[in-house]
Protein backbone atom coordinates (compact mmCIF):
# COMPACT_ATOMS: atom_id res chain seq x y z
CA UNK A 1 0.00 0.00 0.00
CA UNK A 2 2.79 2.37 1.01
CA UNK A 3 4.62 1.54 -2.22
CA UNK A 4 1.54 2.44 -4.26
CA UNK A 5 1.21 5.79 -2.47
CA UNK A 6 4.93 6.47 -2.89
CA UNK A 7 4.75 5.64 -6.60
CA UNK A 8 1.73 7.87 -7.07
CA UNK A 9 3.52 10.71 -5.30
CA UNK A 10 6.57 10.25 -7.55
CA UNK A 11 4.33 10.29 -10.64
CA UNK A 12 2.50 13.37 -9.40
CA UNK A 13 5.76 15.19 -8.70
CA UNK A 14 7.13 14.30 -12.12
CA UNK A 15 3.90 15.36 -13.75
CA UNK A 16 4.07 18.74 -11.98
CA UNK A 17 7.75 19.02 -12.95
CA UNK A 18 6.84 18.34 -16.59
CA UNK A 19 4.09 20.99 -16.49
CA UNK A 20 6.59 23.46 -15.05
CA UNK A 21 9.10 22.69 -17.80
CA UNK A 22 6.39 23.07 -20.45
CA UNK A 23 5.51 26.49 -19.04
CA UNK A 24 9.23 27.33 -19.14
CA UNK A 25 9.35 26.25 -22.82
CA UNK A 26 6.47 28.57 -23.56
CA UNK A 27 8.20 31.54 -21.94
CA UNK A 28 11.42 30.77 -23.83
CA UNK A 29 9.52 30.43 -27.13
CA UNK A 30 7.68 33.72 -26.66
CA UNK A 31 10.92 35.49 -25.88
CA UNK A 32 12.69 33.79 -28.82
CA UNK A 33 9.98 34.90 -31.22
CA UNK A 34 11.37 38.44 -31.13
CA UNK A 35 14.14 37.12 -33.40
CA UNK A 36 11.63 36.31 -36.14
CA UNK A 37 11.00 39.88 -37.17
CA UNK A 38 8.09 41.20 -39.21
CA UNK A 39 10.13 40.64 -42.38
CA UNK A 40 9.75 36.89 -41.94
CA UNK A 41 6.65 34.71 -41.92
CA UNK A 42 6.59 32.03 -39.24
CA UNK A 43 6.26 28.47 -40.57
CA UNK A 44 3.42 28.14 -38.05
CA UNK A 45 5.21 25.66 -35.80
CA UNK A 46 7.19 25.76 -32.59
CA UNK A 47 9.89 23.13 -32.19
CA UNK A 48 11.04 22.37 -28.69
CA UNK A 49 12.69 19.67 -26.66
CA UNK A 50 13.63 19.28 -23.05
CA UNK A 51 17.35 18.64 -22.89
CA UNK A 52 19.12 17.03 -19.98
CA UNK A 53 22.86 17.61 -19.57
CA UNK A 54 24.63 16.85 -22.85
CA UNK A 55 21.60 15.68 -24.77
CA UNK A 56 21.21 16.86 -28.34
CA UNK A 57 17.86 17.64 -29.94
CA UNK A 58 17.57 16.77 -33.60
CA UNK A 59 15.18 18.47 -36.02
CA UNK A 60 14.58 17.11 -39.50
CA UNK A 61 13.59 19.78 -42.01
CA UNK A 62 13.31 20.58 -45.71
CA UNK A 63 14.31 24.07 -46.81
CA UNK A 64 12.99 25.13 -50.20
CA UNK A 65 15.24 26.54 -52.90
CA UNK A 66 14.81 30.23 -53.76
CA UNK A 67 13.76 31.06 -50.20
CA UNK A 68 15.45 32.99 -47.44
CA UNK A 69 15.00 31.54 -43.96
CA UNK A 70 15.62 32.83 -40.50
CA UNK A 71 16.25 30.33 -37.72
CA UNK A 72 16.07 31.39 -34.11
CA UNK A 73 17.34 29.06 -31.39
CA UNK A 74 16.93 29.77 -27.69
CA UNK A 75 17.14 28.25 -24.25
CA UNK A 76 16.53 30.31 -21.14
CA UNK A 77 15.84 34.02 -21.20
CA UNK A 78 19.32 35.13 -22.22
CA UNK A 79 20.55 35.10 -25.83
CA UNK A 80 23.26 32.66 -26.90
CA UNK A 81 22.35 29.82 -24.55
CA UNK A 82 21.76 27.26 -27.29
CA UNK A 83 24.29 25.92 -29.78
CA UNK A 84 22.68 24.97 -33.08
CA UNK A 85 24.25 23.38 -36.12
CA UNK A 86 22.88 22.48 -39.53
CA UNK A 87 23.97 19.40 -41.46
CA UNK A 88 22.88 18.06 -44.82
CA UNK A 89 21.76 14.44 -45.13
CA UNK A 90 25.36 13.41 -45.84
CA UNK A 91 26.31 14.95 -42.48
CA UNK A 92 28.30 17.78 -44.05
CA UNK A 93 28.30 20.70 -41.64
CA UNK A 94 26.64 23.71 -43.29
CA UNK A 95 26.54 26.07 -40.35
CA UNK A 96 27.05 26.26 -36.61
CA UNK A 97 26.36 29.30 -34.46
CA UNK A 98 29.27 28.15 -32.28
CA UNK A 99 31.53 29.86 -34.83
CA UNK A 100 29.46 33.05 -34.55
CA UNK A 101 29.37 33.80 -30.83
CA UNK A 102 26.36 31.51 -30.38
CA UNK A 103 24.17 34.00 -32.20
CA UNK A 104 20.50 33.34 -31.27
CA UNK A 105 19.45 33.69 -34.91
CA UNK A 106 20.91 33.36 -38.37
CA UNK A 107 19.63 33.81 -41.92
CA UNK A 108 19.98 31.25 -44.71
CA UNK A 109 19.67 31.91 -48.40
CA UNK A 110 18.83 28.53 -49.90
CA UNK A 111 19.66 28.25 -53.60
CA UNK A 112 18.34 24.72 -54.09
CA UNK A 113 16.00 22.69 -51.93
CA UNK A 114 17.79 21.00 -49.08
CA UNK A 115 16.89 18.19 -46.68
CA UNK A 116 18.74 18.91 -43.49
CA UNK A 117 19.20 18.03 -39.85
CA UNK A 118 19.35 20.78 -37.27
CA UNK A 119 21.01 19.85 -34.01
CA UNK A 120 20.64 21.86 -30.82
CA UNK A 121 22.32 21.49 -27.44
CA UNK A 122 22.60 23.54 -24.28
CA UNK A 123 25.57 25.88 -24.09
CA UNK A 124 26.41 25.15 -20.51
CA UNK A 125 27.02 21.43 -20.48
CA UNK A 126 26.74 21.42 -16.73
CA UNK A 127 23.18 22.67 -16.86
CA UNK A 128 20.86 20.09 -15.36
CA UNK A 129 18.11 20.70 -17.88
CA UNK A 130 16.74 23.29 -20.22
CA UNK A 131 14.17 23.80 -22.88
CA UNK A 132 15.56 24.09 -26.42
CA UNK A 133 13.34 26.10 -28.74
CA UNK A 134 13.78 26.43 -32.48
CA UNK A 135 11.69 28.78 -34.60
CA UNK A 136 11.74 29.01 -38.39
CA UNK A 137 10.64 31.98 -40.47
CA UNK A 138 10.85 32.52 -44.22
CA UNK A 139 10.39 35.23 -46.81
CA UNK A 140 9.79 35.42 -50.56
Amino acid at each position, binding site marked *: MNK*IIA*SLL*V*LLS*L*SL*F*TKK*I*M*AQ*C*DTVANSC*YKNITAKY*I*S*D*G*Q*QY*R*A*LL*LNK*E*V*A*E*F*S*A*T*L*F*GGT*QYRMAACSGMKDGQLVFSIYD*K*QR*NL*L*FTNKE*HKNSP*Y*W*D*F*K*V*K*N*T*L*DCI*IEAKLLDENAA*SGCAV*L*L*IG*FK*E
Partner: protein
Amino acid sequence: MINNIKRISTLFSVSIVACMLIFSSCGENKDEEDIDPIDTNKTNLVNINGTLFSIPSPIQTAILLKQVGAPYNKSLLNNPGKIASYSTEAKRALNLGAYGADLGYIILYQQTQEAIGYLSAVKKLSDDVGIAGAFDAKLLERFKQNMANKDSLLVFTSEAFRSSDSYLKNNDRAKVSSLIIAGGWIESLYFTTEMFSGNVQDKTKLFQRVGEQKNTLDNLIKLLTPYYQEEGFTEFVDALIDLAGEFDKIEVNYVFVAPTTDDANKITTINSTTEVKITPELIKTIQEKVKTVRGFIIN
Protein backbone atom coordinates in the same frame (compact mmCIF):
# COMPACT_ATOMS: atom_id res chain seq x y z
CA MET B 1 8.58 -1.73 -51.90
CA ILE B 2 11.50 -2.16 -49.50
CA ASN B 3 10.95 1.37 -48.27
CA ASN B 4 7.27 0.61 -47.73
CA ILE B 5 8.14 -2.44 -45.69
CA LYS B 6 10.63 -0.36 -43.71
CA ARG B 7 7.97 2.30 -43.16
CA ILE B 8 5.38 -0.21 -41.98
CA SER B 9 7.96 -1.86 -39.75
CA THR B 10 8.97 1.55 -38.30
CA LEU B 11 5.33 2.43 -37.89
CA PHE B 12 4.67 -0.83 -36.05
CA SER B 13 7.64 -0.50 -33.72
CA VAL B 14 7.06 3.19 -33.04
CA SER B 15 3.38 2.46 -32.38
CA ILE B 16 4.29 -0.14 -29.80
CA VAL B 17 6.80 2.19 -28.14
CA ALA B 18 4.34 5.08 -28.20
CA CYS B 19 1.61 2.83 -26.88
CA MET B 20 3.89 1.71 -24.06
CA LEU B 21 4.80 5.30 -23.26
CA ILE B 22 1.30 6.69 -23.37
CA PHE B 23 -0.63 3.82 -21.86
CA SER B 24 1.28 1.92 -19.27
CA SER B 25 -1.67 -0.48 -19.24
CA CYS B 26 -1.15 -1.53 -22.85
CA GLY B 27 0.56 -4.73 -21.89
CA GLU B 28 0.17 -6.89 -18.85
CA ASN B 29 -0.54 -5.30 -15.49
CA LYS B 30 2.63 -4.15 -13.82
CA ASP B 31 3.52 -4.71 -10.23
CA GLU B 32 3.75 -1.51 -8.26
CA GLU B 33 7.54 -1.97 -8.01
CA ASP B 34 7.75 -1.84 -11.80
CA ILE B 35 6.19 1.59 -12.26
CA ASP B 36 8.63 3.58 -14.34
CA PRO B 37 9.26 7.24 -13.73
CA ILE B 38 8.01 9.55 -16.46
CA ASP B 39 10.68 10.24 -19.02
CA THR B 40 10.34 13.97 -19.50
CA ASN B 41 11.95 13.67 -22.92
CA LYS B 42 8.98 11.66 -24.12
CA THR B 43 6.05 13.59 -22.76
CA ASN B 44 4.12 15.99 -24.93
CA LEU B 45 6.94 16.86 -27.28
CA VAL B 46 6.62 15.93 -30.94
CA ASN B 47 9.64 13.78 -30.56
CA ILE B 48 10.18 10.35 -32.05
CA ASN B 49 13.45 8.57 -31.41
CA GLY B 50 14.96 11.92 -30.48
CA THR B 51 14.05 13.67 -33.71
CA LEU B 52 11.54 16.46 -34.24
CA PHE B 53 10.00 16.97 -37.64
CA SER B 54 9.52 20.22 -39.45
CA ILE B 55 6.86 20.40 -42.15
CA PRO B 56 7.06 23.36 -44.56
CA SER B 57 4.36 26.02 -44.32
CA PRO B 58 1.51 25.78 -46.89
CA ILE B 59 2.09 29.47 -47.57
CA GLN B 60 5.40 28.58 -49.23
CA THR B 61 3.54 26.49 -51.79
CA ALA B 62 1.08 29.29 -52.48
CA ILE B 63 4.05 31.61 -53.06
CA LEU B 64 5.47 29.19 -55.63
CA LEU B 65 2.13 28.89 -57.43
CA LYS B 66 1.97 32.63 -57.77
CA GLN B 67 5.60 32.79 -58.93
CA VAL B 68 4.97 30.31 -61.77
CA GLY B 69 1.94 32.30 -62.89
CA ALA B 70 -0.75 29.84 -61.84
CA PRO B 71 -4.08 31.69 -61.91
CA TYR B 72 -6.28 31.92 -58.81
CA ASN B 73 -8.64 28.96 -58.78
CA LYS B 74 -11.45 29.05 -56.23
CA SER B 75 -12.53 25.53 -57.09
CA LEU B 76 -9.33 24.20 -55.50
CA LEU B 77 -10.47 25.33 -52.06
CA ASN B 78 -12.48 23.38 -49.53
CA ASN B 79 -15.94 24.88 -49.13
CA PRO B 80 -16.16 26.64 -45.73
CA GLY B 81 -19.83 25.66 -45.60
CA LYS B 82 -18.77 22.08 -44.88
CA ILE B 83 -17.46 22.67 -41.37
CA ALA B 84 -20.66 21.44 -39.70
CA SER B 85 -20.05 17.99 -41.19
CA TYR B 86 -16.71 17.58 -39.42
CA SER B 87 -17.78 15.95 -36.19
CA THR B 88 -14.69 14.14 -34.89
CA GLU B 89 -11.64 15.79 -33.36
CA ALA B 90 -9.39 14.27 -36.04
CA LYS B 91 -11.55 15.59 -38.92
CA ARG B 92 -11.79 19.00 -37.31
CA ALA B 93 -8.03 19.24 -36.81
CA LEU B 94 -7.23 18.05 -40.35
CA ASN B 95 -9.67 20.54 -41.84
CA LEU B 96 -8.45 23.33 -39.60
CA GLY B 97 -5.08 22.79 -41.28
CA ALA B 98 -6.70 22.59 -44.73
CA TYR B 99 -8.71 25.79 -44.25
CA GLY B 100 -5.56 27.47 -42.93
CA ALA B 101 -3.78 26.55 -46.19
CA ASP B 102 -6.80 27.82 -48.16
CA LEU B 103 -6.65 31.08 -46.23
CA GLY B 104 -2.95 31.49 -47.02
CA TYR B 105 -3.66 30.87 -50.72
CA ILE B 106 -6.54 33.40 -50.71
CA ILE B 107 -4.43 36.06 -48.98
CA LEU B 108 -1.54 35.57 -51.34
CA TYR B 109 -3.81 35.98 -54.36
CA GLN B 110 -5.40 38.97 -52.60
CA GLN B 111 -8.93 37.59 -52.87
CA THR B 112 -9.91 39.48 -49.75
CA GLN B 113 -13.65 39.04 -50.30
CA GLU B 114 -13.13 35.33 -49.65
CA ALA B 115 -10.77 35.73 -46.72
CA ILE B 116 -13.27 36.52 -43.98
CA GLY B 117 -15.37 33.41 -44.79
CA TYR B 118 -12.28 31.20 -44.48
CA LEU B 119 -11.04 32.97 -41.38
CA SER B 120 -14.47 32.36 -39.81
CA ALA B 121 -14.23 28.66 -40.72
CA VAL B 122 -10.77 28.52 -39.13
CA LYS B 123 -12.08 30.27 -36.03
CA LYS B 124 -15.06 27.92 -35.70
CA LEU B 125 -12.91 24.79 -36.05
CA SER B 126 -10.30 26.16 -33.66
CA ASP B 127 -13.12 26.69 -31.11
CA ASP B 128 -14.25 23.11 -31.70
CA VAL B 129 -10.80 21.66 -31.08
CA GLY B 130 -10.31 23.86 -28.02
CA ILE B 131 -7.76 26.43 -29.23
CA ALA B 132 -10.05 29.42 -29.50
CA GLY B 133 -7.47 31.81 -28.01
CA ALA B 134 -5.28 31.95 -31.11
CA PHE B 135 -8.11 32.99 -33.44
CA ASP B 136 -9.95 35.44 -31.23
CA ALA B 137 -11.95 38.59 -31.91
CA LYS B 138 -8.76 40.64 -31.69
CA LEU B 139 -7.24 38.72 -34.62
CA LEU B 140 -10.42 39.16 -36.67
CA GLU B 141 -10.29 42.88 -35.98
CA ARG B 142 -6.61 43.13 -36.96
CA PHE B 143 -7.45 41.19 -40.09
CA LYS B 144 -10.28 43.52 -41.09
CA GLN B 145 -8.12 46.59 -40.48
CA ASN B 146 -5.31 45.28 -42.69
CA MET B 147 -7.27 43.78 -45.54
CA ALA B 148 -5.23 45.63 -48.15
CA ASN B 149 -1.91 44.55 -46.68
CA LYS B 150 -1.16 41.04 -47.88
CA ASP B 151 2.12 40.78 -45.97
CA SER B 152 0.52 41.71 -42.65
CA LEU B 153 -2.29 39.20 -43.18
CA LEU B 154 0.21 36.41 -43.86
CA VAL B 155 2.14 37.31 -40.71
CA PHE B 156 -1.07 37.36 -38.59
CA THR B 157 -2.24 34.00 -39.95
CA SER B 158 1.10 32.28 -39.47
CA GLU B 159 1.47 33.73 -36.01
CA ALA B 160 -2.00 32.49 -35.02
CA PHE B 161 -1.11 28.96 -36.22
CA ARG B 162 2.20 29.09 -34.34
CA SER B 163 0.36 30.16 -31.24
CA SER B 164 -2.09 27.26 -31.61
CA ASP B 165 0.79 24.84 -32.11
CA SER B 166 2.40 26.12 -28.93
CA TYR B 167 -0.84 25.88 -26.94
CA LEU B 168 -1.49 22.31 -28.08
CA LYS B 169 2.06 21.19 -27.28
CA ASN B 170 1.79 22.80 -23.85
CA ASN B 171 -1.37 20.91 -23.12
CA ASP B 172 -0.41 17.35 -24.05
CA ARG B 173 -2.18 17.63 -27.39
CA ALA B 174 0.65 17.26 -29.88
CA LYS B 175 -1.60 14.71 -31.61
CA VAL B 176 -4.04 17.47 -32.65
CA SER B 177 -1.14 19.70 -33.64
CA SER B 178 0.19 16.94 -35.95
CA LEU B 179 -3.17 16.63 -37.68
CA ILE B 180 -3.45 20.39 -38.25
CA ILE B 181 0.01 20.38 -39.83
CA ALA B 182 -0.86 17.32 -41.94
CA GLY B 183 -4.13 18.87 -43.15
CA GLY B 184 -2.37 22.05 -44.21
CA TRP B 185 0.44 20.25 -45.96
CA ILE B 186 -1.83 17.91 -47.94
CA GLU B 187 -4.04 20.84 -48.98
CA SER B 188 -1.03 22.72 -50.33
CA LEU B 189 0.28 19.60 -52.08
CA TYR B 190 -3.15 19.26 -53.65
CA PHE B 191 -2.95 22.85 -54.97
CA THR B 192 0.37 22.01 -56.62
CA THR B 193 -0.60 18.66 -58.14
CA GLU B 194 -3.90 20.04 -59.49
CA MET B 195 -1.87 22.69 -61.30
CA PHE B 196 -0.12 19.85 -63.18
CA SER B 197 -3.16 19.90 -65.45
CA GLY B 198 -3.84 23.63 -64.99
CA ASN B 199 -3.06 26.71 -66.99
CA VAL B 200 0.65 27.09 -66.18
CA GLN B 201 3.24 27.62 -68.91
CA ASP B 202 6.27 26.12 -67.22
CA LYS B 203 5.30 23.25 -64.96
CA THR B 204 8.86 22.08 -64.31
CA LYS B 205 9.08 24.03 -61.06
CA LEU B 206 5.84 22.46 -59.86
CA PHE B 207 7.05 18.92 -60.61
CA GLN B 208 10.31 19.75 -58.88
CA ARG B 209 8.59 21.14 -55.78
CA VAL B 210 6.49 18.00 -55.42
CA GLY B 211 9.54 15.77 -55.82
CA GLU B 212 11.49 17.82 -53.29
CA GLN B 213 8.91 16.97 -50.64
CA LYS B 214 9.72 13.28 -50.53
CA ASN B 215 11.52 13.79 -47.22
CA THR B 216 8.66 15.94 -45.89
CA LEU B 217 6.15 13.16 -46.56
CA ASP B 218 8.37 10.70 -44.70
CA ASN B 219 8.61 13.19 -41.81
CA LEU B 220 4.86 13.61 -41.78
CA ILE B 221 4.33 9.85 -41.56
CA LYS B 222 6.80 9.65 -38.66
CA LEU B 223 5.00 12.54 -36.95
CA LEU B 224 1.64 10.77 -37.15
CA THR B 225 2.80 7.21 -36.54
CA PRO B 226 2.67 7.30 -32.70
CA TYR B 227 -1.10 7.80 -32.98
CA TYR B 228 -1.64 5.18 -35.68
CA GLN B 229 -4.10 3.12 -33.65
CA GLU B 230 -6.26 6.09 -32.71
CA GLU B 231 -9.57 7.07 -34.24
CA GLY B 232 -9.16 8.93 -37.52
CA PHE B 233 -5.47 8.11 -37.91
CA THR B 234 -5.20 4.55 -39.22
CA GLU B 235 -6.84 5.05 -42.61
CA PHE B 236 -5.19 8.44 -43.07
CA VAL B 237 -1.67 7.21 -42.27
CA ASP B 238 -2.20 4.16 -44.50
CA ALA B 239 -3.14 6.50 -47.36
CA LEU B 240 0.01 8.56 -46.73
CA ILE B 241 2.15 5.41 -46.73
CA ASP B 242 0.59 4.43 -50.03
CA LEU B 243 1.40 7.89 -51.42
CA ALA B 244 4.95 7.64 -50.07
CA GLY B 245 5.37 4.43 -52.08
CA GLU B 246 4.97 6.57 -55.22
CA PHE B 247 7.25 9.32 -53.91
CA ASP B 248 9.95 6.69 -53.44
CA LYS B 249 10.07 6.32 -57.22
CA ILE B 250 11.18 9.95 -57.61
CA GLU B 251 14.91 10.25 -58.17
CA VAL B 252 16.55 12.98 -56.10
CA ASN B 253 20.26 13.68 -56.65
CA TYR B 254 21.95 15.87 -54.07
CA VAL B 255 25.45 17.28 -54.46
CA PHE B 256 27.17 19.04 -51.58
CA VAL B 257 28.77 22.40 -52.36
CA ALA B 258 30.44 24.34 -49.54
CA PRO B 259 28.24 27.16 -48.23
CA THR B 260 29.38 30.78 -48.00
CA THR B 261 28.85 32.95 -44.94
CA ASP B 262 28.56 36.69 -44.61
CA ASP B 263 29.35 37.33 -40.94
CA ALA B 264 28.50 41.01 -40.96
CA ASN B 265 24.96 40.39 -42.18
CA LYS B 266 24.52 37.11 -40.32
CA ILE B 267 23.64 35.20 -43.44
CA THR B 268 24.82 31.92 -44.93
CA THR B 269 24.16 30.97 -48.54
CA ILE B 270 23.53 27.27 -49.06
CA ASN B 271 25.07 26.43 -52.42
CA SER B 272 24.44 22.67 -52.62
CA THR B 273 22.40 21.42 -55.56
CA THR B 274 19.42 19.08 -55.74
CA GLU B 275 18.13 17.57 -58.96
CA VAL B 276 14.71 15.91 -59.12
CA LYS B 277 13.79 13.36 -61.81
CA ILE B 278 10.13 12.45 -62.14
CA THR B 279 8.40 10.72 -65.06
CA PRO B 280 5.10 11.95 -66.59
CA GLU B 281 3.42 8.65 -65.58
CA LEU B 282 4.51 9.13 -61.99
CA ILE B 283 3.24 12.72 -62.02
CA LYS B 284 -0.20 11.44 -63.01
CA THR B 285 -0.22 8.72 -60.33
CA ILE B 286 0.87 11.15 -57.61
CA GLN B 287 -1.80 13.63 -58.70
CA GLU B 288 -4.48 10.95 -58.35
CA LYS B 289 -3.23 9.70 -54.99
CA VAL B 290 -2.97 13.21 -53.54
CA LYS B 291 -6.57 13.77 -54.62
CA THR B 292 -7.59 10.60 -52.75
CA VAL B 293 -5.79 11.63 -49.54
CA ARG B 294 -7.23 15.12 -49.73
CA GLY B 295 -10.68 13.59 -50.33
CA PHE B 296 -10.27 11.61 -47.13
CA ILE B 297 -9.69 14.87 -45.26
CA ILE B 298 -12.44 17.08 -46.65
CA ASN B 299 -15.26 14.52 -47.19
